[in-house]
């Protein structure tokens, strides 16, 4: 049984610049035009960074100043080789930051909740860190029996990479684990499995 309407499941809205912030940093797990991922950057005069994952070793994350139309301050633009590359740079940035920063992350759930966890660990409040979903709906699933996280799950039932159990992917989401909960589907009657459906394309 797939339980929907669970209140722990994140609900996403389109990103919009928080005018109360003094510095803004927007993170995307794929190259996307800035105006496509967030509203309100046109008239903003607070410093704004836009970091993207280019998914190629050909980039070097060197900051580039990009004139943004209408902006008083240019956008500091950086391209990273992979999400891990971006997160590593982010951890250094957050360690230097002061209160007043607003962080925005857009992409697949795995990426945006990794960012949110890093932000929380750096001392950001939930009201200073905004997330929006883009791209595949595939999920990370935490196996409640063996504690292994299986990534890239697109189906209603997934095989746990740790213990091999067939897991029902529930809508119960932990921001701490950045994963959905997986519970063995055939625990009561071993071998009795519901049909597998592609539900998180």
């Amino acid at each position, binding site marked *: 049984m797939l339980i929907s309407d669970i209140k722990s499941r994140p609900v996403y809205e389109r990103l919009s610049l928080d005018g109360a912030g003094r510095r803004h940093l927007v993170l995307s797990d794929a190259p996307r035009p800035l105006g496509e991922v967030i509203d309100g950057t046109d008239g903003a005069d607070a410093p704004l960074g836009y970091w993207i994952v280019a998914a190629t070793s050909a980039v070097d994350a060197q900051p580039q100043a990009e004139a943004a139309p209408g902006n008083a301050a240019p956008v500091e633009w950086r391209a990273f080789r992979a999400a891990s590359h971006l997160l590593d740079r982010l951890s250094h940035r957050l360690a230097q930051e002061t209160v*007043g920063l*607003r962080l925005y992350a857009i992409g697949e759930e795995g990426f945006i909740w990794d960012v949110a966890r890093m932000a929380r660990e750096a*001392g950001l409040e939930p009201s200073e860190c905004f997330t929006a979903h883009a791209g595949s709906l595939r999920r990370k699933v935490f196996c409640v029996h063996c504690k292994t996280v299986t990534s890239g799950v697109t189906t209603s039932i997934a095989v746990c990479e740790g213990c091999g159990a067939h897991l029902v992917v529930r809508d119960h989401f932990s921001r701490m684990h950045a994963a959905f909960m997986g519970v063995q589907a055939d625990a009561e009657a071993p071998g009795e499995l519901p049909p597998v459906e592609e539900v998180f394309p």
Partner: protein
Amino acid sequence: MTARPRTMPLRVAAAIPLSPTLKAFTLIPADGGLVPPSGPGAHLRLNLPVPGRMLKNAYSLISNPADRSHLAIIVRRVAGSKGGSAFLHEEVEDGDVIEAGLPANLFPVVRTARRHLMVSGGIGLTPFLAYIAAFEAAGTPWELHHFCRPDERGVFEGLLARYPAARVHLHCDVDLGVLDEALLRQPLGTHFYTCGPALLMDTVMERAAALGWPRARLHSESFGGAAEGGEPFIAVLRRSGLEVAVGADTSLLAAIEAAGVEAPCLCRGGACGQCLIEVAEGIPEHRDHFLDGEERASNRLIMTCVSRSRTARLVLDL
């Protein structure tokens, strides 16, 4: 649904004037033993028998929360007060016994914070004395900016003398601009607390918000002040079968208490929601900070400590 909070007798072990308007009280259990545990930011509600009525005033605890041998408060004598501070300054002496509620906390520290920035004005320093004792014990970084009148600088310097000078900033001018520098350099994970006159708190909170501090990082404490009186009305206590006249300068809660009816309450300042009573008839004039828009509009609930009535009669389920 509300259990009646217990009270305890406390004996005044010492009443020491700090200045013409400030007096410190050390309180110990009247029947021996330890005082109840409390946390930084907690307050104590004292039952003060002034002529003709019982006042229940709340005072921030300044004692070190880890030390259960005594509780301590500082009381400022307020000109034209409801009588509580005058009573404590003039009538209460060493050895007197005062009935008090259990410590309650409406101004707790944020446990997930990595650093604490405090701004106080005058007697608003009191909760931060307990905060600082706790921060020092835990080794958590903190910074205090205290605003006071020049003639009281010495008193506050004395209260803060034992702490590292680099963390304590005393200001005797009214220029709050000195705070901007502090607000701009706080690392992520800092929380901001303010206590003092309403004007000071409002101003510094606005300032912090303008410098990018979100609401979740800003915390303030105030006692009372909201119930300033208004048109007199009649409160009908349906279950008690009583009609209570609420005068122009008494609160509904005080009038109910004066009639001998036990009513739930805690903060007496419109914040905690403990004194909520159902309204059967009449239209409340809401002055609290607790009910949401829908609850206000329903006219079915009232917080007796601060709110009043728009109608001549207000029928309560009490």
